[in-house]
């Protein structure tokens, strides 16, 4: 088994905005008049090309996610993007990490869209489920005070919709659906893998460990990463009696690799700083609007930060970001060593944003980063054949018609139709007299 899976992670930002010091927030209130759709078109094409390249280079998966009303991540409809991605690729896994479940009045929409993506893509979908950031509650008008309840109820409804035969009724606290019977059903059985991306919130980690959902940790320091992953192991082992596989744990840490350490820093510095200074320029009243967090956990967070002297993302220097482990930058050898260290320290099996785009990085530099990762770093963590996980497993459904005919064969039911009399014709041959003349009621039909 490969020791580390590598996922491209893309926020798809729109970096053509003023510096962070000149606006209140990159979310919600940054005027959308700054968005030029022609430039947006070019960016989307470049971003898609980068993701498609990920498959050609041999990454394990491509991850996109949902954000609203922000230049930080211009991907309000991740399932649309995943559909486009599915059309442009053939084997690589596609993760939507995730759909913001509480945003939906009826979360069955998510169950339907993910199932649809799973069927279209041939069973390549990872379904990340997120509660959505505080800012999404401000822009959507959805009540943040019930969002955790809504999240778990939506998650449970979606899982049941995927795994139980319909129709059934769902009478929940927040969702009342008389007929749950979504078509299509997902291709992967029992359902597409569910990931829980999250920060260091113990609530999320504990729930993920309980349900054995892979947990992806969003960017944070080495120290907090260690405590988050240790927590997952501890909860799994002590409370739920199992030892997690490393593949249940992933860390999102942007990595930039170049020929030498010095060159990597030269290339990445400005774009990393753009991301942390401008891309993450969000005031607390957007990040944590009233009711999004509880009074108790807000107090704990603020006291913890004050005690540890933790700086906000926008306040950190480049050196602090590198030293704290928020990003990894260096030569292939340096990056390999840091990943080895992560495997040892955190016992994780997945790394996200491992090479690829960040912030304001231009297309050519992203591609260079990816090529070097694929050629110099990733093989180090693979079996001798160098193959990504998806190339080692049989696809969930045959790719060619001959394989399909041989392995799946004809559907259980053939489409049939009645014209006159009592007999049903098979629609596929209903236009061929030699076939339908064999039926009594149609023996003399023209």
């Amino acid at each position, binding site marked *: 088994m490969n020791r580390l899976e590598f996922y491209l992670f893309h926020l798809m930002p729109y970096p053509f905005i003023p510096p962070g010091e000149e606006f209140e927030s990159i979310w919600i209130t940054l005027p959308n008049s700054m968005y030029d759709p022609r430039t947006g078109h070019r960016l989307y094409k470049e971003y898609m090309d980068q993701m498609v390249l990920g498959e050609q280079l041999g990454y394990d998966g491509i991850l996109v996610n949902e954000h609203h009303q922000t230049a930080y991540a211009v991907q309000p409809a991740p399932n649309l993007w995943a559909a486009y991605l599915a059309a442009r690729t053939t084997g690589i896994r596609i993760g939507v990490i995730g759909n913001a479940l509480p945003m939906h009045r009826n979360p069955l929409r998510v169950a339907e869209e993910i199932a649809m993506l799973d069927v279209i893509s041939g069973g390549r979908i990872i379904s990340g489920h997120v509660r959505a950031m505080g800012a999404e509650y401000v822009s959507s008008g959805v009540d943040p*005070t019930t969002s955790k309840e809504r999240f778990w109820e939506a998650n449970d409804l979606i899982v049941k919709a995927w795994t139980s035969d319909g129709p059934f009724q769902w009478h929940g606290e927040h969702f009342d659906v008389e007929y749950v019977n979504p078509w299509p059903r997902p291709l992967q059985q029992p359902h597409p893998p569910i990931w829980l991306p999250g920060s260091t919130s113990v609530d999320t980690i504990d729930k993920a460990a309980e349900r054995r959902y892979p947990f992806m940790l969003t960017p944070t320091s080495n120290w907090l990463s260690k405590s988050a992953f240790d927590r997952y192991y501890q909860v799994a082992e002590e409370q739920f009696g199992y030892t997690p596989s490393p593949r249940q744990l992933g860390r999102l840490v942007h990595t930039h690799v170049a020929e030498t350490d010095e060159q990597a820093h030269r290339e990445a510095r400005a774009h990393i700083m753009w991301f942390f200074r401008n891309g993450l320029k969000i005031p*607390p009243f957007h990040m944590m609007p*009233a009711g999004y967090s509880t009074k108790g956990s*807000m107090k704990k967070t603020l006291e913890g930060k004050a005690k540890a002297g933790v700086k906000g993302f926008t306040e950190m220097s480049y050196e602090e970001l590198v030293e704290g482990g928020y990003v990894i930058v260096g030569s292939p050898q340096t990056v390999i060593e840091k990943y080895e260290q992560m495997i040892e320290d955190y016992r994780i099996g997945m790394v996200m944003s491992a090479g690829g785009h960040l912030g304001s990085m231009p297309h050519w530099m992203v591609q260079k980063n990816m090529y070097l990762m694929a050629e110099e770093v990733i093989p180090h963590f693979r079996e001798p054949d160098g193959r990504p996980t998806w190339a080692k497993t049989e696809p969930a459904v045959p790719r060619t018609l001959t394989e399909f005919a041989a392995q799946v064969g004809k559907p259980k039911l053939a489409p049939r139709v009645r014209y006159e009399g009592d007999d049903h014709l098979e629609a596929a041959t209903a236009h061929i007299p030699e076939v339908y003349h064999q039926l009594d009621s149609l023996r003399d039909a023209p």
Partner: protein
Amino acid sequence: MTMTTSEPVTPDRPGTGPPDTTIAVDGEPTVVRRAGTGRAVLYLHGAFAPTRWTRFHDAMAERFDLVAPLHPGYVEGHPPDWLRSFEDLVLHYRSLLDVLELDRVDLVGYDLGGWIGAQLAVHHPERIASFTVVAATGLRLPESPPMEFLAADPRAVEQAFFGGPAGEHTGLFADARDIEAFTNAYGENAVTARLIWERHYDVTLDRRVPRIAVPSLVVSPDDDLVVPLAHAERWAELLPDSRLVTLDGVGHALLLQAPDRVADTIGSFIEEVAG
């Protein structure tokens, strides 16, 4: 009736307010401050500095038996599970009047409290002798929306709340550096969020408020940057037996900025109703 007393949660002027009295209303612990004698006035607080006892309270208590409960959740800093709509508050306050054995009260609601009060008066007119709304929210006026303050810069909210510099009240909208004050306000706002996040107004009020037949008073700053004056004008239009009084030189913080003037305006009205 079981009750316990304790120090006021956040006294504006320490030592001046009545103690917090906790009574059970439908089994839910509810904090009530009560001071003064005379006609019973039920005062329903708003979303701003909701737990404070202020000079306005004292001035009201000098003329009336002022009953000032805290809405459910504001002390704890999170909405109780059972609080899902304004209807729950109507039931809660009807029960509170029962527990306190108050047959009829003069009802005064400020800001969000005016909205809650209106629903209470609509559903239980027999319990209300008069109705006063002060800079109240709740009505839908798309051309004059109230300020969004639950996800806004506290400095901008403070500026709008006072209609200018906060003066002696500076620090009411604490930033995160004052962890205690900030998290208290954060918790209070969570309760407000439960009530108004998804609907910053109630479209039913336009049809319901005209049912409030008791003598009514509408008080508003003449230039309120949080709840525009158009709201007060609309309240006055909807309340069949009402008059509108506007106060100059104050903002939405009028209870803090001109406590005696507001108390006197309301007090004179209630005394007039009493005859």
